């Protein structure tokens, strides 16, 4: 598989401040990659380096097979970027804004492209209106349309759903999934962890340096054991004691009318546990798995990172 975005130890310093420290990532074609990190983590700085808007202090990177810093023209032609703020000309209409950018991107058939994306994003009816009169979310959608006009193979999206209402955010997420289906490579910077969880094939948790990089499911698994919870009509300590006798059970606690059991392989072991409980006369109402959210993982990583910094 071809790698569409590769960074090799890229760093960026602003004077004394290190914004990005030796970042190594490699994103294959067709992947949706999430870059997660707190405010000031260096996400926007990374995107800017990848479009050659600012030069890395050290290290190198390539996008769509072109080297950042030397093949800038090709990179800009093959990359669509959604910048942190929409950045549209307020005094021009939506249509004029897109037409202007289409000419700079050398779009072959601008009218068709503009119509296509304005319709897809639900702005076609309002194409003649000045962008200054648009709501924040409409401007954001227009900026997404702009990023796509030239059908880029690589998309860099800085907080694509910020400022969007839940319906519009869902529309944009579905839209991103569609773009992925078309084989485009997409990198998303976001604070919305739920979104990253649902949308991204892999995520990087990042704060100046890379803290973790994996699929959302693997990140959860690495940090937390899996747990199941048995809801009983009457949870007794004796049930817990008998369950703790199994070697594979890491822990078992009684909480109200629930037994919370930590174990590595619930698919294999649950039936055994159910049998045991039933034999002891327990009435099982529900069985569920406790799913740690990506947010738990993220907060864990970031908080640990902060603690380390304080200890240093």
């Amino acid at each position, binding site marked *: 598989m071809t790698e569409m975005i590769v960074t090799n130890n890229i760093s960026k310093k602003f004077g004394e401040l290190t914004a990005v420290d030796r970042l190594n990532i490699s994103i294959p074609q067709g992947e949706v990659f999430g870059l997660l990190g707190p405010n000031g983590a260096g996400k926007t700085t990374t995107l800017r380096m990848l479009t050659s808007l600012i030069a890395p202090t050290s290290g190198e990177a390539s996008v769509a097979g072109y080297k950042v810093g030397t093949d800038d023209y090709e990179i800009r032609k093959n990359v669509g970027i959604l910048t*942190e703020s929409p*950045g549209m*000309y307020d005094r021009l209409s939506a249509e004029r804004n897109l037409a202007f950018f289409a000419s700079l991107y050398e779009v072959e058939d601008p009218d068709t492209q503009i119509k296509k994306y304005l319709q897809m994003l639900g702005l076609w009816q309002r194409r003649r209106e000045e962008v200054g009169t648009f709501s924040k979310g409409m401007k954001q959608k227009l900026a997404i349309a702009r990023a796509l006009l030239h059908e880029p193979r690589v998309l860099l999206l800085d907080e694509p759903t910020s400022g969007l209402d839940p319906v519009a955010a869902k529309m944009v997420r579905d839209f991103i999934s569609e773009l992925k289906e078309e084989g485009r490579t997409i990198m998303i910077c976001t604070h919305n962890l739920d979104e990253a969880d649902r949308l991204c094939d892999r995520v990087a948790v990042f704060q100046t340096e890379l803290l973790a990089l994996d699929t959302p499911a693997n990140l959860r698994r690495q940090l937390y054991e899996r747990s199941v919870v048995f809801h009983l009509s009457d949870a007794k300590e004796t049930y817990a004691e008998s369950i703790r006798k199994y070697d594979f059970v890491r822990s078992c606690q009684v909480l109200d009318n629930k037994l919370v059991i930590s174990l590595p392989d619930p698919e294999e072991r649950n039936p055994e546990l159910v049998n045991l409980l039933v034999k002891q006369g327990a009435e099982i109402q529900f069985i569920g798995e406790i799913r740690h959210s990506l947010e738990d993982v993220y907060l864990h990583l970031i908080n640990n990172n902060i603690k380390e910094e304080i200890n240093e």
Partner: protein
Amino acid sequence: MNKSWQVTLKEWREVFKNKMVLYVIVFMPILFILIPLITLYQMSGSGALSEMAGSADQIPAEMVSMCEGLSGAACAQYLVVIQFLLLFLIMPVMIPATIASYSIVGEKSTKTLEPLLATPITTIELLLGKSMAAVIPAVTVTWISFVAFIVGTIIILGNTDLVTLILSPMWLLLIFGVAPLLSVFGVSAAVMISTRVNDPRVAEQIPSLVIIPLIGLFMAQTFGLIQMNLSVTIWIALILLVIDIVMLYIATQLFQREKILTKWK
């Protein structure tokens, strides 16, 4: 080239919606045409001219020499006109400096500069587009005003000798050579300054900075420190040409994507 032109068109669509810019482009020329014409008209009506003609010997000798053989009254008129004509050189600096500084500082404050710089446009193409957007209207307005002024003068005075002198090589060189060069000067100065500032209110100040050297020239001429004639004009044009080239070079050097994006103040 096509991209530059697209930038130019975009600028015009945007900038001409700005009241301040429209004001400079429309009212300044009207003012600069009307004031000298009204003055000339009053002079010709009140007999002030013949009075001045009678005391033609009181006009400093170096100034009389500028009249190149015009009679006393016509010489006095010419000396009045010449002061005003220099105002026509302020226009080609003020207008482009106003447009260019608004157009760059504006892109910064509306955050459109980053998506713009992320497109495959070269710095030269971008600056060329912005410069054309500023220079073309400025030079056009200057030329139109000049023609309007000449026509007005002929209507008021009907003095063909005076008109011939205004249409001398020196004046034609000033209006059709020096004026465009001054426009380019105004633009490159505006580009240089506006890459360093973010506040649109500062952008308003830029044009007034740019005309300072011109006002110096104007004063020097009024006080007889220098005499405008064809050879001085040629020198001014040549020096301006060199200054323009240097300034344009510096402007393109200063206009680096990274610096502009990261040196937010």
